[in-house]
């Protein structure tokens, strides 16, 4: 399938959306006010293939921000009966950048390890992903090239290069080919187009200047030398414990569980919702003891989880270099700068 690169005239995107909508709930980046958000798309809507990433990552389609685990209802015998929500329509994600494709692989690696949740892997299996190549960094804080996610083209059934004018689409799965065939877009890219693509890919790294002076695989070892609280305190002094870094991260997976109920308590739901290691209360036990109470400890935990624990346990670095956490941190605590400092240390 490697060489199956087809032409998709831009105006045919609508046919693609239409075709996918038969089997999926189709979402893609759409400009809303000053930002771009993952939005349900219909034919005719302006899909922003030039979007500079979204605040909330695509993991929302595999582990929703707030998800009903089950509903409960008190029966006549006074006991509660439980009911799981019906299966939802699978998602088709259009225009996923390399960083977020990488994050989907991280999510799969995590969920297929010791963890016993099957909801997320099931959704990853059923979904349809169309990847999208980047030509410029999304954010000043992006360092995807350094983290190796700029070139990431999987998991995606289709992978798109927008070379201006026509879209070039690489078919990467049988399902992807089926969709392209249904859309009637199986015209091979012309030699000229392929030359243009190769040229752009060759010069692309120039737009992504190296930000780290070391390979991400080295992070785990470098971080090992950065255990001391003191190293983290100055940066942590700037932390508001607002939790935004966790919530916008494409590879964070932690959640909280809570109950909602009617006034009489007879009906309700148990839900899980996103939280993270920077959110107050996360590592606290009943009675109030917090096993990771300080901002410095918490900041170190987040960085260690991404740079050390995740590669050690799941075989993939937990940071894709997407730049979201630093961009959306009110005081601009930058994981890129932290990695840089840690990697620079002797």
């Amino acid at each position, binding site marked *: 399938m490697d060489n199956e690169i087809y032409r998709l005239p831009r105006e045919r995107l609508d046919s693609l959306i239409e075709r996918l909508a038969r089997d999926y709930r189709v979402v893609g980046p759409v400009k809303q006010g000053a930002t771009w958000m993952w939005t349900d798309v219909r034919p005719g809507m302006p899909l922003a293939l030039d979007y500079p990433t979204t605040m909330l990552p695509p993991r929302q389609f595999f582990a929703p921000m707030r998800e009903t685990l089950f509903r409960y209802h008190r029966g006549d015998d006074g006991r509660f009966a439980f009911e799981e929500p019906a299966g939802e329509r699978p998602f088709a994600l259009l225009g996923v950048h390399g960083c977020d494709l990488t994050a989907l692989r991280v999510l799969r690696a995590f969920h297929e390890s010791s963890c016993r949740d099957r909801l997320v892997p099931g959704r990853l299996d059923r979904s349809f992903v169309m990847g999208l190549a980047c030509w410029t960094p999304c954010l000043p804080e992006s360092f995807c090239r350094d983290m190796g996610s700029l070139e990431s083209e999987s998991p995606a059934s289709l992978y798109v290069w927008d070379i201006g004018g026509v879209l070039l689409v690489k078919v990467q799965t049988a399902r992807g080919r089926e969709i392209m065939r249904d859309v009637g877009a199986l015209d091979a890219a012309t030699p000229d187009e392929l030359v243009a693509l190769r040229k752009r890919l060759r010069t692309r790294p120039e737009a992504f200047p190296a930000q780290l002076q070391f390979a991400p695989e080295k992070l785990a070892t470098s971080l090992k030398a950065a255990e001391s609280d003191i190293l983290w305190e100055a940066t942590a002094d*700037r*932390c508001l*414990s607002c939790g935004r870094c966790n919530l916008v991260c494409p590879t964070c997976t932690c959640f909280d569980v809570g109950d909602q109920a009617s*006034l009489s308590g007879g009906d309700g739901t148990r839900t899980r919702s996103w939280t993270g290691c920077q*959110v107050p209360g996360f590592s606290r036990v009943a009675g109030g003891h917090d096993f990771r109470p300080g901002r410095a400890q918490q900041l170190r935990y987040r960085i260690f989880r991404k740079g050390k624990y995740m590669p050690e346990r799941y075989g993939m670095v937990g940071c894709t270099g997407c730049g979201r956490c630093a961009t959306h941190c*009110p005081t601009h605590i930058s994981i890129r700068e932290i990695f840089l400092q840690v990697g620079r240390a002797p």
Partner: protein
Amino acid sequence: MRPRVAFFSFGSCEGCQLQVLSVEDVLPELLSVVEVVNFREAMDDRGDDYDIAFVEGSLVKPDDVAELQQIRARAKILVAIGACACLGGVNAMRNRRPVTELAREVYDGRQDGVFAALPDASPLSSVVQVNYEIRGCPIDRIEFLEAVRSLIAGTVPYVPPFAVCVECTLRGTPCLLERGIPCLGSVARAGCNAVCPAYGAPCEACRGFHEVPNFEALGEAFFRHGMTRTLAAEKLQLFNNYREVREAWEQAVPSSSAT
């Protein structure tokens, strides 16, 4: 037996009572689980026999103190509702200047109809033990109902320990601070589902602060987004000016009077 509940009001706009009344869709269900014996905004009857007292408003008049103490003596559970009752709220903005001076300025020296005022407008907890707080200006109706549900079930209401930013981000609201709008969400306590930022209005921390507010960093955040640190202090005074609340932040955030 349904617990008897009563609503009382001190210095406030009574907007929190109106929030309670706005639960029309569940009012029948609410009345099936509690018996309301005192609710000035909604009924004429006055009962003095109650289990749970919901009290809004801050203490502003000398008479308020004894009245609140009486409520405390009668109620098994006293719940402060709203920013005024929990924090002193906007009323406490006046605490920075002598009340005589303010009276002269506002009422232009007239005495008729001007009631006696306490030197400081203060939250209920400055005078009596408050069992639980439902914060916000006004309170959130869903949070109010959740609190009622917890109390009638016999346990404590849930209070989120984290920042408004958590709820705001999960709603997908673009950050106001990032657009140079002076938002206090990063130090403010969640529970309101970040309703103000969702409509473009910055958070004013009407629910007080989350568990570990970092006020130095708030000043830094304002500065990084093109605002002054003193603006942070000015914003904080709106709802969090009562002496003991103010102590939490005033050392950390330079105010214009200090600089």
